[in-house]
């Protein structure tokens, strides 16, 4: 499934306007004013959550390339909305869900009536160990475990839960069946710890496919997150460059100093490297390639490198104003660090990459 460059551009342009209008990055401390249900439905009605689902399954047929483009636009404004979770959950249910799951859940995931959350990571580092257990019982499954830092976990109607049975498995769980404990995170996004205390799910809540679906879902989530991170880095760099072009000291624009010019250029280098990786990973997702996990690691790793540098420089290059709660630099650096840590930080990703590559 591929989408033309023109279609992709149109999708991006529309999304950029909409996100800027409806969910702009705002300076300030505390909780991000989470997107209201009405606004989220409006975004979903434009087909955003359906982007990666093929048309024959009721989706928009833009592929992961399309979903990635939209996520980058959301990331530009570091907007807190469940597009990543809904977009990926919809694609996974369409492809790997039971008949019942597709009938009951897919329409709501596609049009946004049902909010999804990806309950994959565990612990402080979202490492690769999977401690959540799935036990067979009475023709269904019982899930036991604790997921950490689940984006939208307390608002979710449907959770995609990674658990270990005789192999890593992926289940759909009802939001009302889990205990979600909201977290006050540094970046103000709506995260929650999700406790699965003997949650019963039916056999048809299990997603079925070839290979390790947990690794697959983790890969898709990393790619989606990396797309958001590249968007955030792109916007942050624009804000920095605008400041360098307007701020004057010593009687000249500070952007005319070569010391600052080269540092800005280095940010663009890292950003473009990350963008190439995200594009390659999205293509791997659309082509269902075997190297998806590697490319997902690469995309998230490089996006992490880029956004770490850019968000750090964003504070420094703005000088004192960058340290105040009146400026968005603080919001970007906090959002960046949380995103870097989600689904595995760079040390962990590098280790996993070495494992896959045989060293």
């Amino acid at each position, binding site marked *: 499934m591929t989408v033309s460059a023109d279609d992709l551009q149109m999708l991006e342009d529309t999304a950029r306007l909409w996100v800027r209008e409806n969910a702009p990055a705002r300076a300030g401390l505390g909780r991000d004013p989470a997107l209201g249900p009405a606004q989220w439905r409006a975004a979903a009605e434009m087909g955003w959550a359906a982007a990666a689902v093929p048309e024959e399954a009721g989706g928009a047929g833009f592929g992961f390339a399309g979903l990635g483009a939209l996520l980058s636009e959301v990331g530009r404004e570091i907007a807190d909305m469940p597009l990543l979770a809904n977009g990926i959950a919809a694609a996974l249910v369409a492809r790997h869900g039971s008949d019942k799951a597709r009938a009951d859940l897919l329409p709501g995931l596609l049009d946004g009536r049902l909010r999804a959350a990806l309950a994959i990571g565990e612990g402080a580092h979202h490492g690769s160990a999977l401690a959540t257990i799935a036990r067979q019982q009475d023709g269904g499954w019982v899930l036991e475990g604790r997921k950490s830092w689940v984006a939208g976990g307390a608002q979710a109607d449907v959770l995609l839960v990674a658990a270990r049975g005789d192999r890593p498995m992926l289940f759909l769980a009802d939001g009302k069946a889990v205990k979600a404990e909201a977290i006050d995170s540094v970046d103000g996004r709506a995260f929650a710890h999700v406790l699965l205390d003997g949650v019963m799910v039916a056999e048809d809540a299990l997603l079925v496919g070839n290979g390790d679906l947990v690794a697959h879902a983790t890969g898709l989530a990393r790619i989606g997150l990396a797309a958001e991170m590249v968007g955030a880095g792109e916007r942050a760099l624009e804000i920095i460059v605008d400041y360098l072009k307007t701020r004057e000291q010593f009687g000249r624009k500070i952007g005319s100093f070569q010391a600052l*010019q080269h540092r800005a250029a280095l940010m*663009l280098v890292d950003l473009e*490297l990350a963008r190439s*990786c995200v*594009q390659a990973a999205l293509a791997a997702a659309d082509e269902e390639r075997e190297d998806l996990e590697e490319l997902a690691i690469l995309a998230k*790793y490089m996006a992490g490198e880029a956004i770490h540098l850019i968000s750090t420089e964003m504070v420094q290059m703005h000088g004192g104003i960058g340290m105040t709660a009146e400026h968005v630099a603080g919001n970007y650096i906090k959002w960046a660090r949380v995103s870097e840590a989600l689904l595995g930080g760079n040390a962990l990703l590098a*280790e996993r990459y070495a494992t896959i590559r*045989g*060293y």
Partner: protein
Amino acid sequence: MSDFRAEVREWIAANLPDSIRTPMPEEEIPWGGRNASFPNPQSRQWLEAVIAKGWTAPTWPAAYGGGGLDAAQAMILQEELERANARPALFSFGLWMLGPVLLEYGTEEQKQRFLPPIVRGEIRWCQGYSEPGAGSDLASLRTRAEDKGDHWLVNGQKVWTTYADKADWIFALVRTDPAAPKHQGISFLLIDLRTPGVSVRPIELISGSSPFCETFFDDVKVPKENMVGPLNGGWTIAKKLLQYERQNVSAVGFGGDRSVRIEDLAKQAAGEVDGRIADGALRNRIARHNLYDRAVDLTTRRSQIDTDSGSVGALTSVVKYASAKANQARGELAVELLGLDGLGWSGGNFDPRDLAETRKWLRSKGNSIEGGTSEINLNVISKRVLGLPD
């Protein structure tokens, strides 16, 4: 699978010799030219097969010997060649640098005369840009070309002319109007290196190799029809060609031999546990290096797709900067991993493979200088891409 992909795959299976699927040692790089050498005869066989399809220059028009492919097809061809681990059939500054600007700025006669021998690897080109007094400030070049009615008379000196000692022709920037502002008095001239008055002297580098030369022009007569583009309009062409150069030195990894994997050197240095590098901290550094390196490769490919669809631009300086950084990081890692074994110069006390790593490390120091220094590329990014003020 598309029909074209299937066709390419079938063609590769039928035509790619086994020995051309292995990493290429430097001495087997097929540079073509009047004195082409093929230490591995299968390199010649592969080159001839590729030339027959026009696929040394996949996107050039068939009328000039090219493959006539569109950008999407060229991408598929590239992917399938990589998938088969096929070595490039031809390394050529003609293909990478001169050809694209001839297609854009050359006359019909120039295209017909110069492009087909490039596609077929019959003429090997080198680049006459830098001079002793014109490095990063290239536009201050002083090599003169005087109008003598029926020919140009060229006098001056070029430096860092890569492989001038092995090349057949040179594309050179020459000053045709010394009175004009420096960017406006430069023209782009094609010169046969067999012309009387041309002499070439290789320069010995810190690595002991001599890929670069000094090239001297002493009353060299050049036919009038060898000027590309308008008189005194060479700077535009020069800049365009530099973009192709930056992209391509990166694409071929600065000629660096990738046959030794850095993770294997690390396994030797630190030992293995269950097939893995025993030292976790080292393993992490190696993985981070390889991740960066792979990102550079993907970005290089992305910038080539831009080129195939007709735009060279923002990414070329990014690619040039980052690939130099990656290759230099690799060199430093290799020498560090080998320890003192990586610091020999010659002789039987050292493993030849280790000596090669030492030389590669030293050679890589030029990567951030040749084809535009890293500092110049950062200038280009900050001014032309980010729009920062003077």
